[in-house]
């Protein structure tokens, strides 16, 4: 069996200390294989965003182990973690998080720039990524000139352009209307069909239902982990 993309063992996360300590995660263990489409469900406060931040190496667990491919996140230093984020992970946020006053192409180019890809090469790849999300004609637009759905598609293009091992989407449709939600979901599925691992954090049932596997969190622990037949 191949190495799982994500392996989490007994991960806890505690914010604060003493009486005011908040246990966001209370010992989570799970495995996600290459090519899966996983929805992580839960009400607000269930710890799903904390889990996503740990999976994306944006935050460190208080205790427990996290392997991404065969790398133990706890054993990596700052610079190595930035390389992991650069090479293995693609992020999509609820609030898009595009760099303001910067064109769509430049936003998509950024992760490649930090990988040291040459200018002409990364421009070509950025344009290709924008085309794959259907925004070739908006390449030179700045974020504020784009609709929410379009901004999220630019963000997806930016996450995909490095061919990451997994795509982490945190409430990717949370700020979008129904039509845009459907578009973005279709796009994520298409990406998954092409072989990428997609992990979506959501509290919306219909988003979760479209996934192949659903992990439900409550009070920082996994309460349900189901896989539907394709």
């Amino acid at each position, binding site marked *: 069996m191949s190495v799982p993309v994500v392996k989490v063992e007994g991960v806890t996360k505690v914010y604060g200390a003493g009486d005011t300590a908040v246990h966001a995660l209370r010992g989570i263990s799970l495995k996600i294989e290459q090519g899966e489409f996983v929805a992580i469900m839960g009400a607000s406060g269930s710890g799903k965003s904390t889990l996503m*931040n740990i999976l*994306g*190496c*944006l*935050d*460190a667990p208080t205790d427990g182990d996290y392997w991404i491919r065969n790398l133990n996140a706890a054993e990596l230093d*700052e*610079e190595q973690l*930035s*390389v992991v*984020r*650069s*090479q293995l*992970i693609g*992020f999509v*946020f609820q609030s898009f*998080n*595009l*760099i*303001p*006053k*910067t064109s769509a192409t430049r936003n998509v180019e*950024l*992760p490649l*720039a*930090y*990988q*040291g890809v040459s200018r002409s090469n990364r421009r070509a790849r950025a344009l290709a990524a924008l085309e794959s999300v259907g925004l070739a004609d908006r390449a030179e637009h700045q974020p504020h000139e784009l609709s929410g759905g379009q901004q999220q598609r630019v963000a997806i293009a*930016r996450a995909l352009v*490095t061919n990451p091992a997994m795509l982490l989407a945190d409430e990717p449709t949370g700020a979008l209307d129904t039509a845009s939600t459907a578009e973005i979901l279709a796009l994520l599925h298409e990406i998954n069909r092409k072989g990428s691992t997609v992990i979506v954090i959501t509290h919306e049932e219909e988003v979760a239902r479209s996934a192949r596997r659903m992990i439900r969190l409550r009070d920082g622990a996994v309460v349900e982990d189901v896989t539907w037949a394709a």
Partner: protein
Amino acid sequence: MGSLGLIEIWRFAWRGISANRLRSSLTILGVLIGVSSVIILTAVGNGSAKSVKDGIEKLGTNSVTVMRNGGGGGFSRSANSNTKPLTINDVKALNDKIRAPQIKAAAPILNAQGSCTYGTFSSTPQSMKGTWPSYFEAANSPIDKGSYWTNEDVTNKRAVAIIGTTTATDLFATDSPIGQVIRCNGQKVTVVGVMKSKGTVGFQDADSVVLMPLTFVQRSMAGYGGLSQIQVESVDAASTTLAMDQVTTIMDAQHKIKSATSADYRVLNQASILQSSSTSSKTLTVLLAAIAAISLLVGGIGITNIMLVSVTERTREIGILKAIGAPKSAILSQFLIEATLLSVMGGISGVLLGIGISHFSVLGVKPVVSLTSVLMAFLVSAMVGLIFGGWPANRAASLRPIEALRYE
């Protein structure tokens, strides 16, 4: 791996600056104002100090004037018959090298009043003096054209004169006055030389002057009474105070003065009068430097402020950059280069503006730019920009990505 080339980082920094034109130009403006005001203010201070110093040098730091007490003008303690006039004997005593080693020369001065004419032109000199050739040295009055008259002219009571440039212009316009005969108070006088210009100090035009042999002025204009003044020159500027003491000792002996309060003469050093105004101009320089320091401080706080706000505002952006894989070093160098570029651009334009404005006179003072103030202003603002741009950027780049991302 995962590295961003140096040129690439510069390009990113430049893009960061140009993407936020207003913020960038405000930062530059802050640095510019701080730097240029420091340069201008210290230049004005230097300029006024220099003009006072030049004035002193023109008048001669070595010259000492002996005046009769109560003899018109000034506060008089003993305006009665006890006062002795200044005499040629006093001058001779002051020229005694043994009793007064610090005195280089002493010259009598007899003031006359009146006007001079040449053809249809007329001039009323501010001072018309009868004196000895030693005056030219004692009063720091070299000639520019022609020649000096001599001791022989004094002995023979010859009607010769050296005139100042203002008088020369009044009477001769651009023609050469040398060898021409003018009439002073009706007396024919031959002009033999023109003094070098000394300029105007206050209301006194040092160039509106006619100098003639003492004996000639006594015979034809002012009579044989006491002298108006005695002009004394010390051997050098450092011994002026000592020379003044020697003048006092000799004059006390000449006039049989027992105590300083009963002296019938006064000893003045024109330079010492100006020295006090030079002290006040030093005070002015210190004051201006203080203002400059404050403006540098205010400018620095302005830079600090805008850098802090700009980096804080971009903490989220830093979070995004980290999330998509930017290493801390790349983020930090980008922000440092941005801060440096802004500070240097502001600094250079501030230096140019400051030097530019310093070419005009400010409140009648010709500013003198000092290299120290230029360097100080530039370095301080660049440092402030770097530190207060770099420090918050370092703080933001060191945050965990999620903390930077959550920053609102």
